[in-house]
């Protein structure tokens, strides 16, 4: 358990709902769920494997104070950001954002499941995007393939070879991006300073709560 995690668990004890309300983005909406289950039924990945808890259950688990089960859950990472649940919720709960918020919180306190592929993508994407201000698609793809080590990466790259080749031929994937080329913003210094400040302020805000 990370220090942050320990602190939070101590502070809130049994009141996990309050913890989520204060720490997770849009967490204040959890209490407004009326348990109709439309979100779960509307989710495109609901019918695939990997779902331990669909949104309806995540909401209920939080209200039942089941901290461990929520923070260890895989369900949030099944989100494709399709916003079906969001527009259909009769209570206008922004389910998509609540799922993202809970995932972010679990990750922040070091509880996100290890090797969760979408979690990995999320981090990789943001780091890639903020490094140069714009996404470097080739490097993004590479770092995704090689997350499980060199061998697995090559295997995956081979599988995807035809896909990549097609894109290269169509002028939609530039291999040169991998070796220093690619798109970037001019004012990288400004962007990095701005993000550093934003991170600092965000950390202060979250710490002030609870």
């Amino acid at each position: 358990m990370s220090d942050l995690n320990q602190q939070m668990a101590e502070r809130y004890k049994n009141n996990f709902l309050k913890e989520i309300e204060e720490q997770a983005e849009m967490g204040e909406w959890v209490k407004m769920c009326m348990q109709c289950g439309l979100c779960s039924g509307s989710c495109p990945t609901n019918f695939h494997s990997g779902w331990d808890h669909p949104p309806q259950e995540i909401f209920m688990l939080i209200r039942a104070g089941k901290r461990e089960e929520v923070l260890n859950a895989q369900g949030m990472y099944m989100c494709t950001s399709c916003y079906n649940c969001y527009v259909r919720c009769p209570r206008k709960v922004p389910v998509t954002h609540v799922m993202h918020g809970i995932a972010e919180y679990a990750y922040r306190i070091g509880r996100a499941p290890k090797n969760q592929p979408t979690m990995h993508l999320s981090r990789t994407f943001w780091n890639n995007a903020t490094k140069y201000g714009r996404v470097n698609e080739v490097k993004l793809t590479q770092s995704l393939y090689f997350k499980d080590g060199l061998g697995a990466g090559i295997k995956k790259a081979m599988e995807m070879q035809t896909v990549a080749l097609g894109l290269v031929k169509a002028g939609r994937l530039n291999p040169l991006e991998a070796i220093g080329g690619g798109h970037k913003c001019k004012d990288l210094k400004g962007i990095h300073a701005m993000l550093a400040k934003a991170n600092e302020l965000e950390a202060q805000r979250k710490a002030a709560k609870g």
Partner: protein
Amino acid sequence: MAETKTAAYICKGCELGTRLDTAALAKVATKSGKMNLVREHDFLCSAEGVAMIRDDIDNEGVTHAAICACSRRAKTEAFNFPTVAMSRGNLREGVIWIRPDTEEARETTQEMAEDYVRMACAEVKAMTVPPGNQKTGSVKTLLVVGGGMSGMTSALEASKAGYKVVLVEKSATLGGWAAKLHKRVPTREPFKAPEDNGVADMVARIEADANIKVYLNATIAKTDGAPGRFKVEIAIESGAIAQEDIGAIVQATGFSLYDANKLPEFGYGKTPNVVDQAGLEALAKEAAAAGKPICRPSDGQPVKSVVFVQCAGQRDASGTHLQYCSGFCCNTSIKQAMYFKDSNPDIDTVVLFTDLRTPGNGEDFYRAAQNKGVIFSKGVVSSVAASGNACAVKFKDLILNEETEAQADLVVLATGIVPNSGPDLDQLSEANRQAEGGNEEAKEQVVQLMSKSVLNLTYRQGPDMPQFKHGFNDSHFICFPYETRRTAIYTAGPVRRPMDILQAQEDATGAAMKAIQAMENAGLGKAAHPRAGDLSFPTVRLEGCTQCKRCTVECPFGAIDEDEKRFPLFNESRCRRCGTCMGACPVRVISFENYSVNTVGSQIKAVDVPDEFSEKPRILILACENDAYPALDMAGMNRHEYDPYVRVIPVRCLGSVNTIWITDALNGGYDGVMLMGCKHGEEYQCHFVKGSELGRYRLSKVGDTLKGMNLETERVHDLEVAITDIATLPQKINDYAALIKSFPPSPFKGF
């Protein structure tokens, strides 16, 4: 009595003149209708046409008028001649609008029209002008039984409308359940917080109201008489009896909470920390008075966690407890949860429900509670166990699909309501029957049941209002929610179905208005709903009566008592003019001036029945005037065509159909008889509640008659019709006509 002079009027408007040979119709009216005076007119409902009829009445001495034009449901304001007997031949909706305008159809259409002219002439000759009920009472004081929210509302509303009210309350104070509430569910925007129960204000208004006379600690000892002239005896605290003359009654006797002692598995009675909703209100009131938070009864410590158990003993499928939803308890639990959250947001407040039902604006209230941090969980509670000062609530979480447990300082059970509706009349009449036979147990049961009586009516059919599902007093659920089976006595509020305060107040207002209408109609000798304004009333030729009691038992409204000689005693003011007694009477001695065995029977006989070689069958349709006949009219308005061989006669209710009509029709050579009446049973739509059911019961015996006559039993067909069956009804008629045509012609033709 003035000399009888009959007249027939044939209208040529609305294309009647071009579609039909009206000169031939006039000839029919003269020759077979034997009318003294026959006139055609181009536009009979015009001012000029109406003036013509008026002139005949005033100057030619016409006493009986057969208006052969449109349906009796149309142009009623134009054809309004209350001093003469009047019939209507339905040539428009009943003939030209349901037949194609083709050369081939012309002959059968004309035949149809001629029959309707004959029928109108025959009917009117069998009628007299109803003089109105002479045994009226003109008392305009309303009795309200029950001084809760519903009763107080009825009293105030009636007073506002200018009527005197006698309000009788069995307890020592007004206010009923509402007075026991710490606060009530909000009634206005933004529906976010409980509000004052509002009782003090209403009580003050009642006390200040000179129109309202209040009896506290009082019950109804006896209710005698009829609308407009009830004699009510009120038993007051001292043991004395007060007499009041009453015009109409609103029964607003409310409910009792379902007894939580029947739910031992939820810990009620085992620990003071399990309460029902009334118990929680008491705790909240006590706490508010002391300026303290709500405390745990076991040790007086402030409650830090509370669990609400919804549907405790309600919506029970096992048959042990209440089967129904009481309608208000979800909102009440939300309100009670707010008592805690509004005083201290840190109190853990959990509502365990299976389906949260929040009628009215309860959805906003529910959301407000969620916003305040009340936790709502879908769960079914299996047990509540007490240990020391804490309760353990075991429940199945329906979302997470697991058995789990919650700890609470206090548990509140939402137990729901049982109506204070008096004894069950069927049960009572059965007990009475057995008691008369000397059964001692039954005698005790009678005493016990009678102790629950609210109104103590002296009616032949029992001392209280009839009950319907689950012991609630019957009201016409589907079509006329205020109507009951006792004229000028209306039930209001949760005694007739589960409802909350706001609904009960609306209900009580409506009941007061209906009661005022009933008093006014009674004073004028007119019928109440659904034949409001009808001046006819049943008369009986007692010399022919065999004292079979069918009329006194079957009258859906308890209008007929028995006199000392056991003859039927009609209380005309209680009568709704449905004619069920007339349909029931085996010796046919009951009739109305304008509706009798003869008015219908003579129409049946007036129809020209062609011989068996003509291939023109005749089918009689007896159609309920409340739903089936309007549906047929509207089919006409929509130009839905149907078979030309049917002849339709409207009846007041299927219950008024005397089987002699059917036998006469079959004996007279009709090939089939179709009866159209309203739905009966649990979701009845019969305007007279039991009429169609009784009518159908009698019809079920007709099969034997048919067999006796050697006829196919399918020749008599009972069809359930709702007023909305406009498009499907013609098809059903045609299907039936096709069936009849597949049989050989009736062997009774030409006899």
